[in-house]
């Protein structure tokens, strides 16, 4: 600790408990809220909209945009199912089909599944931890713009017939310079760069927020399980995404400047791509999965009216899943001819990773079993379906972990069935339940119950009708990624069923959308806590004010709203004329210092524009990296350069810096 800090500590610069504080009076609180609103609220108008840094607004934008991409990905799936409904169908030719299945997978994995769960974290985490805002709000905004621009870039290229067509994992040599024609593979690789940059910055925001901005009293062992899930997921993002950044960069380099990373003729290796990709790719699916586990815990606890059984075990399970998830990637490569001994290790790890998730499932069932008058609401239905849908996917995963069996069903529709069961059953169903659950908080209105139930049952039926037959198709010899199949194979029955199921899914999602649109206007007004939940996001209005809370609550339990009798003292003393948040210590959330958050700014958008220009330019010309970096440097400098707040320069900074020295 430096000398000034030591002196500050000695001079009693610590928080203090104030008895009978007049700042809690109604007039004081009213005044406080007005000032806070003025300080934290963003302006109106287009520029203000572009300069937004409120995590709630950006979180909602992220979610809406992700669902927009989800819709596009779903349309692509519908096109595929139309083509495959009949053998030797001519609805789509091979080139368009190959682009479509690649776009579908790429959209769903990179533009929907990961961003949407990170976005739920962006919206909910600061509220759940009692903070006024998120750490690095401008960087968060930058992450959003990069996500939006990346997807726009991808779809623009697709509409110009330059859509990627090598599958969502783009194996070389097919995607390499010799066989990957035109710019399609470069478009894919650069889309990755956009979305990885976005994911990494959002993950950084979440980690720092969770570690440093929790309200006093919220020690690590009092954090909601959803916050734990987002913390673990953010770490996974940070450790996993660099691998695909490297591999996609190497692919572009091979294609653009004749490097030989994946060229076996010059000492490279196509299998290296697979290692690098799947080292990222497997954790990626757990990144998609874990936030859903967090949402499951919150919703199940709320409607069971009790905390989830085995809090510590749930955290250890999620952590174990995250760790083991980094050690199973070779199970995607069992058919490549790798040595058998190595493969056995990955079989064991891929089977063992089931155990932590199984423990979580048993704990949830125990929670529901001992519920105090369980409420079977629509969100609960979505969460409960996990026990029937995801588990099928988990079990087929155990089958796929076995090398001999995988050698038969790898790269067939059996795998397609498996991953849709685990991703949709394990992540999308809980997500839709979570959206239903937190929609009142985000928009102040309840979703319609009947439409919710119709949509749920349609989805449950449609999903199983679509994907269960695919197990049989895989067992019956139908490989993946085929634009058509011969009539003599006997595959048309199951394919037709799957296509009918896909239509059912489409209808169910349409009903969900109608529910959202209608309820935004005419839904029942939600109070602060319509579900009677326990966590802090429900301790403020719906939707929350721009400053989240006033006064900022502190906590004395992990279910603060169910234990209000503990009455921990609310927080006062944060400035209201600037966006001030309280930074606390990591383990026990003891108050540390006050920190001024930056306000709205156009720099994130401008930097996202310059970054996007450089990224797009560089797939056409390697010098784009050099020249394109110059505008990025300019915008980053503008972003970093502080605006003067001369009047608030502190004296007492050790006397060496005279006020006059700060003036230009």
């Amino acid at each position: 600790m430096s000398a000034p800090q030591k002196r500050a500590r000695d001079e009693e610069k610590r928080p203090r408990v104030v008895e009978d504080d007049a700042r809690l009076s109604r007039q004081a609180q009213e005044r406080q809220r007005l000032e806070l609103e003025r300080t934290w609220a963003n302006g109106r108008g287009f520029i203000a909209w572009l300069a937004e840094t409120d995590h709630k607004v950006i979180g909602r934008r992220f979610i809406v945009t992700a669902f927009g991409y989800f819709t596009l990905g779903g349309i692509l799936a519908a096109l595929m199912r139309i083509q495959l409904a009949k053998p030797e169908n001519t609805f789509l030719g091979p080139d368009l089909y190959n682009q479509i299945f690649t776009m579908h997978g790429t959209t769903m994995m990179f533009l929907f599944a990961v961003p949407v769960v990170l976005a739920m974290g962006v919206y909910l985490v600061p509220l759940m931890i009692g903070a006024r805002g998120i750490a690095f709000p401008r960087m968060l905004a930058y992450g959003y713009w990069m996500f939006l621009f990346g997807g726009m870039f991808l779809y623009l290229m697709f509409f110009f017939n330059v859509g990627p067509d090598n599958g969502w994992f783009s194996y070389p040599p097919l995607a390499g310079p010799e066989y990957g024609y035109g710019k399609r593979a470069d478009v894919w690789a650069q889309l990755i760069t956009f979305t990885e940059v976005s994911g990494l910055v959002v993950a950084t925001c979440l980690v720092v927020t969770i570690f440093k901005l929790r309200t006093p009293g919220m020690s690590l062992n009092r954090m909601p399980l959803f916050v734990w899930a987002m913390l673990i997921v953010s770490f996974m993002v940070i450790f996993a995404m660099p691998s695909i950044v490297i591999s996609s960069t190497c692919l572009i380099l091979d294609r653009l400047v004749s490097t030989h990373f994946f060229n076996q003729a010059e000492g490279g290796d196509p299998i290296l791509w697979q290692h690098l990709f799947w080292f990222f790719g497997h954790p990626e699916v757990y990144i998609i999965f874990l936030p859903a586990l967090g949402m499951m815990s919150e919703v199940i606890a709320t409607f069971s009216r009790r905390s989830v059984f085995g809090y510590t075990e749930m955290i250890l399970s999620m952590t174990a899943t995250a760790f083991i998830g980094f050690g199973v990637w070779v199970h995607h490569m069992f058919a490549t001819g790798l040595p058998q001994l190595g493969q056995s290790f990955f079989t064991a790890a891929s089977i063992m990773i089931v155990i932590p998730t199984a423990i979580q499932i048993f704990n949830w069932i125990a929670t529901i079993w001992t519920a105090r008058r369980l409420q079977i609401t629509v969100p609960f239905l979505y969460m409960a379906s996990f026990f029937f849908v995801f588990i099928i996917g988990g079990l087929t995963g155990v089958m796929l972990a076995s090398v001999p069996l995988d050698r038969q069903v790898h790269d067939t529709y059996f795998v397609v069935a498996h991953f849709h069961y685990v991703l949709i059953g394990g992540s999308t169903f809980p997500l839709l339940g979570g959206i239903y659950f937190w929609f009142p908080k985000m928009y102040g209105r309840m979703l319609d119950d009947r439409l919710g139930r119709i949509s749920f049952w349609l989805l449950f039926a449609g999903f199983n009708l679509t994907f269960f037959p695919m197990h049989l198709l895989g067992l019956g010899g139908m490989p993946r990624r085929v634009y058509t199949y011969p009539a003599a194979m006997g595959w048309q029955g199951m394919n037709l069923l799957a296509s009918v199921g896909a239509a059912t899914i489409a209808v169910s999602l349409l009903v969900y959308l109608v529910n959202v649109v209608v309820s935004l206007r005419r839904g029942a007004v939600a109070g602060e806590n319509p579900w009677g939940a326990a966590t802090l996001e429900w301790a403020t209005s719906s939707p929350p004010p721009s400053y989240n809370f006033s006064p900022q609550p502190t906590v004395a339990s992990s279910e603060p709203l169910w234990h209000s009798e503990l009455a921990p003292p609310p927080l006062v003393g944060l400035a209201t004329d600037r966006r001030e948040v309280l930074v606390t210590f990591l383990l026990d959330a003891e108050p540390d210092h006050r920190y001024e958050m930056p306000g709205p700014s156009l720099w994130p958008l401008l930097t996202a524009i310059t970054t996007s220009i450089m990224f797009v330019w560089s797939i056409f010309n390697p010098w784009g990296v050099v020249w394109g970096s110059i505008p990025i440097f300019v915008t980053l400098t503008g972003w970093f350069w502080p605006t003067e707040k001369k009047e608030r320069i502190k004296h007492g900074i050790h006397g060496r810096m005279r006020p006059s020295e700060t003036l230009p």
Partner: protein
Amino acid sequence: MSHLPSILHPAGIEAARISQLWWTMFWICTAVWIAVAVAALIAIRRGHRAAAVHVPDRTIVRNVATAAAISIVALIALLSQSVLIGRALNTLRSDDALRINVTANQWWWDIQYDNPVPSLRVTTANEIHIPVGKPVAFNLFSNDVIHSLWIPNLQGKIDLVPGRRNELWLQADKAGVYRGQCAEYCGLQHAKMALVVVADPPDQFEYWLAANRASAPAPVTPEQQRGKDIVEKGPCAMCHAITGTLAGGRSAPDLTHIASRSTLGAAAIPNMHGYLAGWVSDPQGIKPGNRMPPPGLSGEELQAVLAYLETLK
């Protein structure tokens, strides 16, 4: 007799072992699913009742731990079964097995029956004959991108990776015709890169092998001679080879015994006169994007070529 390509209808020892593993896993997994589904349903019913069920934490811990323990035991059972079958799959090796070199291309299979004596080698394409009841070893290569050889009735798949040699052992135990298909996305016509595996009794297989070692028969009729001339001096010879003629191209399927194959275009269409005519005159119409350009033959030239090709048994 032609079989549907299902892994649940094994026709060889390796596929049979895997099929057995499948059923073991299937039944155990079904039991697990039922157990969890029933537990979840009971839990929902109980939780929904008016009075809260009071279960001491100790009991819950015990139950969860028991469930976890049972799960671990089940998983270890599955793991062991998998490892044992995996090891059993490696016992097919033998020193005097038939060796076949398969080289994958976009979007066809080059097949070469290996032999230390060069004149005894056989080169063909898209159709593999093997003897029933004897182990066969495939050496797998790729000329371009990653492909995967998969014959569901006989064995699990394995990739063909450029720059590497992979090996696949299998044995057919029932005579029949089995379909294989490329199972690693390899570009535009991945969907139509299939092949036919014919398992014959050993003497029939030897007969086939001997017949395929022969050069192409000489044409008999003038039309067939004309067809041969067109093939040798026209665009066909740039890519295709017919042993015993001037056609010596190596970048397309060997046509020496094309008429004895049951399919064309890597099992995309049956090998019958009309289909053959369609293929030779307009390959892009049947398999758009494949590497064979339309040879630009007139009607009369086409008939001559077909007449010649149909002699290549």
